[in-house]
């Protein structure tokens, strides 16, 4: 299997007043294609910082980050923007949709920045929206949708560029447990279809959807092991399967 993400000796140091805070302190890890990884840890453990670096929103203070064999740890802003556009699909806790645009336009947006032609763009966006089951809401605005539907739109937007990895930061954090389960079922399906998924969560039962669990503490990898009790969920059900 090919390696998608390779982190070697990643550190991130923030300067707070006179003090240096080591948010990440020598992270080494690799993620292979079609892995399903959960990153866990208490607040302040550095999981958000790691997520930002893996998502190319931020660059490490030191260390090497290879995404699909390309060194992205020393790229400039515009190069990173391109990588984010082509290689990474983000799903945020707060959905982060553009309130004034309809669903189609929201999903289309990464393709606009990616320079895809209008007709192809529309086609791809509709496909992605169909994939998350919202074809009948294509011209609705985000505020006309429920939380779960909004998160589906966000997932469609993340999928639409066919990225190398899906990065989800607490994707169920703003949803009730039933809706959250539906979203996780969607992630499970996407994984089965061959997507590589990295999700950040602090909820144990969300993490159990993944195949591999990485625990961070104080900016270091504390534990990195396969998930023993994998949770397989059907949409709108809550049945754990060993």
């Amino acid at each position, binding site marked *: 299997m090919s390696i998608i993400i390779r982190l070697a000796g990643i550190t991130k140091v923030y300067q707070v007043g006179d003090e240096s805070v080591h948010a990440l302190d020598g992270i080494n890890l690799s993620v292979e294609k079609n892995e399903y990884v959960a990153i866990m840890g208490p607040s302040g453990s550095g999981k958000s910082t790691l997520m930002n670096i893996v998502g190319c*929103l931020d660059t490490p203070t030191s260390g090497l980050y290879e995404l699909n064999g390309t060194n992205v740890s020393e790229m400039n802003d515009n190069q990173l923007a391109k990588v984010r556009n082509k290689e990474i699909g*983000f799903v945020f806790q707060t959905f982060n*949709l553009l309130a*004034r645009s309809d669903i189609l336009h929201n999903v289309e947006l990464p393709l606009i920045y990616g320079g895809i032609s209008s007709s192809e763009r529309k086609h791809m966006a509709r496909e992605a929206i169909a994939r998350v089951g919202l074809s009948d809401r294509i011209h609705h605005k985000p505020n006309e949708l429920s939380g779960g539907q909004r998160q589906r739109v966000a997932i469609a937007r993340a999928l639409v560029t066919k990225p190398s990895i899906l990065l989800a930061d607490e994707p169920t954090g703003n949803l009730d447990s039933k809706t959250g389960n539906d979203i996780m079922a969607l992630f499970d399906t996407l994984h089965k279809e061959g997507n590589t998924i990295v999700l950040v969560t602090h909820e144990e039962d969300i993490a159990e959807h993944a195949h591999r669990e990485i625990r961070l503490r104080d900016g270091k990898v504390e534990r990195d092991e396969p998930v023993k009790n994998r949770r397989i969920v059907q949409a709108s059900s809550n049945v754990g399967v060993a």
Partner: protein
Amino acid sequence: MNYAFDEFKEGMLIAFQAIRANKMRSVLTTLGIVIGIVSVTLMGTAIEGLNRAFNKSIAAIGADVLYIQKWPWGGGDDWWKFRNRRDIRMQQEKTLERLAETASAVSPTIGASRTVKYGQKYIEGVIVVGTGYNFLEISGANISFGRFFTRTEGDGGRPVCALGSEVAANLFPNENPIGKTVKVGGYAYDVVGVVEKQGSLLGLESLDNRVYLPITRFFQEFSSRWGGISINVKARSVDQLEDTKEEVRGIMRKIRGLSPRQEDDFAINQQEMLVQTFNQIGGVIAAVGLFITGLSLFVGGIGIMNIMFVSVTERTKEIGIRKAIGAPRRTILMQFLLEASVLCLLGGIIGILIAFPLSLIIDQVLPTAMPVSTVLIAIVISLLVGLVSGFLPAYRASRLDPVDALRYE
């Protein structure tokens, strides 16, 4: 190419969404630009109108005519020097007329103010112009009734005259003036013709409140202390004016017996000198006027910049989202530049729509003109104001750190 267009379209979409979402704010901000554009456009219009009025009013002087006189137009600081110059005499005119080869016509003129009477009607303060038979050829005016006096009448000093249109209309409201006898300063003259309406010179002196009569007669009846005359020389064309000027200058120096070391003791005046003087004064007025009205546009631009900073701050999160899904800096920069430009352009267009009817109202008092170039310049300026005042906020937006921007609430 295609990408740039899509990006532009997306930027326009965002700009209009943002303007629609903050209607009141957009209207108030745009108002600053509207006021700026209205005042600048009206000022430009007035200046243009002034120029046109000036050009129209000096047309009677003729672009291809030289006026040889004691005093230079536009004055000069050496009043006494001009005052002490020798007068220009009829004899010199005769000699010049004989010698000047490049001139198409040479004619003397002299003026005085007199009362003109016909029966019980009289007009005070009519300008009596003593001149030659070919005066009209030089001034470019036409006769509307009858004829001008002939060469024979002119040389012979016959008591004949041609009336300016205003004089004719006032003395002969209901009858044909040709063949009637009028009294000019107490002396009888037969009317042979009426000169067509010419308007006024520089909006001051009416060219129609005049009576034209032979200059030899003028000297006999209207005192010779007005000894100094003006010699009007018409060149064959405007292009040959400089050649004619040089020739006339040489002949005049010779006639007046100047040695090569002496400077000219006469002035060769031409329309160009008035144009230059006007352009100097007009240029200063225009610069000051446009600067002052430009200030209001500047204030409008500051308003745009201010509101764009607010807009960027408000939409920090949106900027973060766009960056997260791959918008490069350039795209964000363009998005906000477009928004500022659209605001300013709207202001510019509304401003012109307001300024145009206003210019028509002002036109009743002062001749104004709003040429297409003014409209285009106003639109370009408003666009530039948008780009300049939008740049700093847009630049700041484009440099936002995506992580911070996403975290912003």
